[in-house]
């Protein structure tokens, strides 16, 4: 068994069985709060534990048939909110292109993404401090370490903007589940999203 500053590299037993969920989550909290660990150590240790947590939670989740209906509701919510964001993004991008035409000489790009609501306590009154802490660690981990932190779009503005087409399949439950460490149970908690559109002005000065 390999160790990093006192933590086993993965959280499995010697027979390669997963430890109980509570133990894995305790370790996630300890690792995230351990200032002795460098960011790369924290990332490696958390990555293994989040994968194992997801596996454990999903095993239980897919055993229950009523969850399929709940997934449909959250999926529809995520897709409709992302479509609203895309429309705003599209308007702002086109208006930036018009501005550039009126005042050439710069270069800029517009990015849009949404944040999964990080303050679940406001949405779910019964959310415990522990659940909140795990959720906060998970969402900030994904924002920092994912190749694509949160779903979104980027448009580079030139004379004519070349925008990706909106692809609904990229913004639903399945996308979040397959591309991040969110267990299905985590995604079902999402009731609110925060949007952000960023205009990056480059070499315009």
């Amino acid at each position, binding site marked *: 068994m390999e160790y990093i*500053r006192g933590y086993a590299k993965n959280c499995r037993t010697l027979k390669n069985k997963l430890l109980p969920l509570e133990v894995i989550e305790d370790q996630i909290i300890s690792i995230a709060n351990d200032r002795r660990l460098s960011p790369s150590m924290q990332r490696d240790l958390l990555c293994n534990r989040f994968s194992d947590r997801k596996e454990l939670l999903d095993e239980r989740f897919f055993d229950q048939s009523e969850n399929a209906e709940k997934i449909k509701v959250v999926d529809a919510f995520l897709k409709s909110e992302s479509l609203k964001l895309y429309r705003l993004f599209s308007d702002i991008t086109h208006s930036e292109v018009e501005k550039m035409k009126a005042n050439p000489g710069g270069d800029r790009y517009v990015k849009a993404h949404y944040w999964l609501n990080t303050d679940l306590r406001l949405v779910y009154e019964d959310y415990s401090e522990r659940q909140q802490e795990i959720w906060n660690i998970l969402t900030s981990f994904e924002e920092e370490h994912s190749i694509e932190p949160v779903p979104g779009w980027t448009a580079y503005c030139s004379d004519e903007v070349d925008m990706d087409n909106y692809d609904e399949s990229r913004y639903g439950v399945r996308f979040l589940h397959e591309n991040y460490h969110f267990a299905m149970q985590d995604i079902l908690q999402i009731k609110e999203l925060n949007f952000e559109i960023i205009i990056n002005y480059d070499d315009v000065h």
Partner: protein
Amino acid sequence: MMMYIDGYESEPREEMTVQQMEQAMLRISEDLNLSSDDKIYLMQRYKIGRSKKLDKEFSMTAEHISALKKAKALMTDVALKLNREALRICEEEMTKKREGKRAAFSIEAVLRFKDYCSVGNDFDNAQNKLWSNVLSKSTLPSECDRIIWRATFFVCQTRQELNSFEYLFEETMEKFILVKQDLLQVSNYGTTISYIYN
């Protein structure tokens, strides 16, 4: 008596050259076995040592005074343009809101050091890595660490939060433990405006 932290001298020695201090900073930043706290502590000590040394070497010649004025004017000019643009966008969003359209809740303007490869003209990889540590407030260079100035403009208010740009240059040097030579290297800044929706 010299103290050591995981093999590094806890403070740079007086007789060390700026180059030696910078080499030590690069090693510290890349050391995977060093804890975050130790990294931050050591980096701060070496940054202070480096800035003291460079400040001693800097003389206020006519050439330097003129270059400093230009560097200060560049930063102020970019910040003012950014502020003006954010105000304009804020007004646009207020109009959208009045018309019953979906509008942003707030606008955030950010002035930051750009990616280091575009700082200066012919920086090599090692110099770029060094800049990412020198220009960063902590030892963990991220987008957040490079922010010089940030202001939030709330769309529901007519009076926006405005900062004074008069001391931006000096404040930046203090905040990032930079010296005049460092800011003379910066030929451009990055600006970003974000629309935040609730």
